[in-house]
Structures are given as C-alpha cells and as structure tokens.
C-alpha cells in the first residue's frame, strides 16, 4: 500500500538535512584536494565505495595515487592539464584503486575553485560509479574489434586456396592486411585455370573498408571466376563486370585487372579497369610498367562503351607482376617516386624465383605498420 506524501512534507525533510549530511551521504563520492592533488576532504560515500578511511587519506595521499599506473599517466597528461587550462573537467573515465586493490570504474568531474583574489586554491571532485556503463562500453568496443577481426578473417579466408601450378611457370602471391586495429580493406588477388594450358590472373581493389568491403570482395571475386569460365576476352569480361555491379548495386568504382596467359604460346591478354598498371620484367630489358589495355574503373556510368584490351607476347624468363595500390602508395611521397622504387626493386630481384622476390619486394616497399592492404601476385614464365 502506498502512502501519498504531500509536497510540503518532502520540503520539510530536505530542509532538515544539514549541508553536512548532504555532503557526506551524497549519491556520489565527493572529495577535495589542494592544487597538488593532496586530499583535503572526502565524503562518506567515497569511504564506503573505496574502503579507505579518511584518516588514512587526508593530508597523506594524492588523488592520482589512488589510480592505477595507466590511469596515473592519463591523469597527468590529460586530466590535470585540462583542469588547469579550462578550470573544469567533465566525464573523464578513470579507475579508482580501492583499499583492497580492486578497481572501481568511475566517471570523474572536477572544478577548480579560486579564492577571493582569483588564485586557484582547491580542486573539488565528484566521482560516479560507472561499473555498468563501463561494462557496456567495453561490450561496444569488443563488438567493434570483433567486427574488424571477422572482416580480416573473412577476407583472408577468401584468399586462401590452392594456386595453379604446373610445367613452365612459377606463381607466388603476397597478401598482408592493414594493421589489425584498422578495418580490413577490399584488396584481392586470384589465379585459376581456364583450360589445360591457360591461366587467369586477377587483382582488384574495392573502395571502402570493413565487413562490407570484405563481403563485396567475395562477390566480385566469384563473379569474375564465373564470367571467366564462359571464355570472355579480358575487355569483354570487364564490361560484363560493369553490368554485374550495376544490376546488383555493388562494387561501383572497383579497380580490377584481368589477364589471361596462354602458357604454351606465352601470350598475355589483359584489360585493366583503372587499376595500377601491371609490371613486366623481360630478360635483357629494364623492368617497366605496361600502360596499354587501360580503361576506367568498374561501373562509373560509362554504360557499355567498349574497353581497351592489349596482348603481349612474352619471352621465356619474363615475370609479370600484379599488385594493389597499398604496395606503391605512401602518404607524402609522390606516386611517381614510389613507382620508380618498385621498378628498382624489380631490377634488384631480377632472376630470383617469385616465391622469394614477391615477399621481399613487399617487405621493402610496404613494411609494417601498414595503413592499407598490400596485395601482390607475381608469375614467371620459365
């Protein structure tokens, strides 16, 4: 049975509570320190929450000493400077080390109080128990990390699988994703048999990051495989991919290079949709980039306009390199310089088996930590 209380009686109760009681039993922990952080006063709620007794704290301990090592650094590098600069700090998450060593997740607010001459004198701090809130935040952070991890794993799992091998050629790939804490990108490579002596080589890069980019990559990769099995020429395959992207509203502005290599004829036909140019190392010639067979990225609104395609005859001993921009792009350096470095690397590793040169070049050009995925596919004709 509930008892109605008149507003008047509530007012009476409140007014009976002394300021002292309001302070001591406030629903938040309350403390005051001098400018050096030395504790001057704490309330009963603080004692109850932390297990300290005020006589062990007042005049003896500094507030920052009640934080863990990490919190202490955070206090010194963020909390204290902010308080000095703006006179107050709000909603900083810190963990208070209780008397028994356990940690109290807290949200902390402070104000700097000045004396009558305007000099700062005292820091007043309220502390709110944030145990549940912190748990929820950790769940959110964990969920974000899990999504990153899933995207990385998904991307990686789609890129594993046996590569073609056989007489007369050697194939090697290198794939490293961006830093774990960054979202996965949408780079991919592929290599598969089209017929007994014809192999398809693919390298692509999707705009965007994260789970969605990884999923898109999986779809486009499958689409390329399916379309390739119908025997489309490279330029026609890219046109078919335009249609695929448009119909399914997926992967617009993806860059893609698709190459078909006849191993017996040593004939390479390829078409490049806005992707970095393939690099070629022929015996007795300097490494170079191949700038023909180029057209625009996938599904950029050019309709069914015909795309370019090129065919090269490769001398025995040639190496072809497909890669994504993560290998050559680097902030604050020009693309020309970086592509020059790739040519230097190709020259330096000339003659080595691709199983060795591809990872070596990737390590030299794009050492960790990486901002972006790095994807390289190299093939040498014997």
């Amino acid at each position, binding site marked *: 049975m509930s008892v109605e209380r008149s507003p008047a009686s509530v007012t009476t109760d409140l007014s009976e509570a002394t300021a002292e009681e309001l302070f001591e039993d406030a629903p938040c922990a309350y403390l005051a320190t001098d400018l050096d952080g030395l504790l001057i006063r704490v309330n009963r709620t603080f004692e109850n929450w932390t297990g300290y007794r005020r006589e062990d704290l007042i005049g003896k301990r500094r507030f920052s000493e009640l934080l863990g090592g990490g919190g202490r*650094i*955070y206090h010194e590098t963020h909390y204290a400077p902010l308080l000095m600069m*703006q006179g107050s700090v*709000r*909603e900083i998450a810190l963990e208070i080390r209780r008397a028994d060593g356990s940690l109290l997740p807290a949200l902390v607010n402070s104000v700097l109080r000045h004396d009558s001459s305007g000099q700062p004198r005292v820091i007043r701090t309220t502390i709110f128990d944030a145990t549940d809130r912190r748990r929820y935040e950790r769940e959110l952070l964990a969920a974000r990390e899990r999504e990153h991890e899933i995207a990385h794993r998904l991307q990686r799992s789609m890129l594993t699988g046996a590569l073609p091998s056989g007489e007369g050629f050697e194939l090697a790939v290198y794939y490293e994703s961006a830093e774990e804490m960054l979202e996965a990108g949408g780079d991919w490579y592929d290599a598969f048999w089209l017929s007994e002596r014809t192999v398809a080589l693919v390298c692509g890069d999707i705009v965007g990051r994260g789970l969605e980019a990884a999923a898109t990559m999986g779809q486009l990769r499958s689409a390329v495989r399916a379309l390739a099995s119908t025997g489309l020429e490279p330029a026609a395959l890219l046109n078919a991919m335009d249609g695929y992207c448009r119909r399914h509203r997926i992967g617009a502005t993806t860059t893609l290079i698709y190459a078909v290599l006849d191993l017996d004829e040593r004939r390479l036909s390829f078409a490049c949709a806005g992707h970095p140019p393939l690099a070629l190392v022929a015996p007795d010639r300097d490494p170079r980039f191949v700038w023909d067979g180029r057209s625009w990225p996938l599904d950029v609104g050019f309709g069914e306009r015909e795309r370019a395609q090129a065919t090269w005859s490769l001398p025995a001993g040639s190496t072809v390199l497909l890669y994504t921009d993560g290998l050559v792009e680097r902030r604050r350096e020009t693309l020309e310089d970086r592509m020059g470095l790739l040519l230097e690397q190709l020259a330096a590793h000339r003659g080595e088996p691709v199983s060795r040169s591809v990872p070596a070049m990737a390590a030299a050009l794009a050492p960790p930590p990486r901002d972006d995925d790095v994807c390289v596919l190299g093939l040498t004709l014997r």
Partner: protein
Amino acid sequence: MMFAHGFGCDQNMWRYVWPAFADTYRIVLFDHVGLGGSDVGAYDRRKYDRLDGYAEDVLEICHELGLDDVVFVGHSVSAMIGVLAAAKEPERFGALILVGPSPRYVDDEGYRGGFSREDIEGLLDSMDSNYLGWSATIAPVIMGTPDRPELGDELTNTFCRADPDIARHFAEVTFLSDNRADLARVRTPALVLQCANDAIAPVSVGEYVHRHLRGSELVMLDAVGHCPNLSAPEQTVAAIKRYLEG
C-alpha cells in the same frame, strides 16, 4: 623559440609560458600531427611509428621557416623529440629546454623509468574508455558553431582532442620508446627542468638525463605533477630565463 607540447594535449599547454618570451624571441607554436588543430590527413603510421618521425617534423618546421639558433622547449615526450632533432641537425639549435624529459618510461635492468608494461596497457585501456566520451564532446567542435558562442561553454576537454586511433598509437610510441642511447649524441647546451614530484618522469629519471647529456644543467622546480608549464608557470618561466640569460 619553438615550443613543442607533449603527449596528451596540444599547444595550449604553453599558454602561460610563451607570452613571457614574446618580446625577445620569435615564438613558434605547433600541434603534433594527429593532435589539436593539426591536419589529421598528414598522419602516416609508418612515419610516426618512431619518435624520429616527430623529430623530422620539428626539423621541417625549422627549414620551412628558415630558423637557426633555435631555443627548443619540449615538454614530456617532446623533450626527447627535441633531443633527436638536435642530434640530427645540431647546427639548427642554440639550446634545448627539456621539461620533464624521460628517455624511457618502462623499467629496465638497472634503470627505473617508473612504469611497467602493464601500466602502459592500462593507459591504452584508459584511452579506449575515454574514446566514447570524447567523440560525443568533440562533435560540436567539428561541426563548428561560430554563431552560437555560448555553446563554447558546453564543450569540455577540447584542448586534448585527438583522433582516438592516432592518440593511441602516439601513446604506444611514446611510452614504449627507449632513447637513452640518443642522449650521448647531443652537443647542444641543454636545461633539464625537473619537478620535485613528477608522477611520470621521477627525479631519478631527470638526473639520468642530466648525467647523460653532456654540459646540461639540471634545475629542480618546486612543483608537483608532470606539467609545471601549467601548474607552476612563473617558476618555469623564471628558470628558463635564468638559463638563457645567465
């Protein structure tokens, strides 16, 4: 006279100090890339994976502005950034003022930095926990509300705003750095300003820096905490003036 802020906040850390030198020196203030008002787009994980990346920026500012005989004032991690810059191009620098320097934060055999690896993990945790709070308070700053100045009062913690991923990386690079060997490479005259009770760079660390920086001077400030530039600006200014004029 170039002022470099440490890990945590931005060039506002010097607001009570630099004006005292403005009549005698050309003052250069900047925010490290990724912090304060810097261009976050210029952040390169590889470049800033070592403190040398930040030292390169200091030198780049010197080159760009044509600075010579620079008095470099570095707080906290920027003290070591100044050491690295001066080791690389000694001719640029007239003096180094190192406020609360630490060449290594994590304890090592025969060396006490004051922190364990677990502490550094704890710091990264603190930063992660504060990420959500930040993004909420930063949002109005990013949107810009010049026509409603009263909103300025609502914004908290703006002097420490940072891209969370970059701040985390900077924390790792800073607190896991070991630049003890670089101290011997410096020939520039240096003043080490040490707080009597610094929770981040203890007195023994300041003394270590002083011992290994040849010709350096060590001055103890009667101040608590890691930021005498904020908590004891008059003392800080006086000590720097005494050193530069003496």
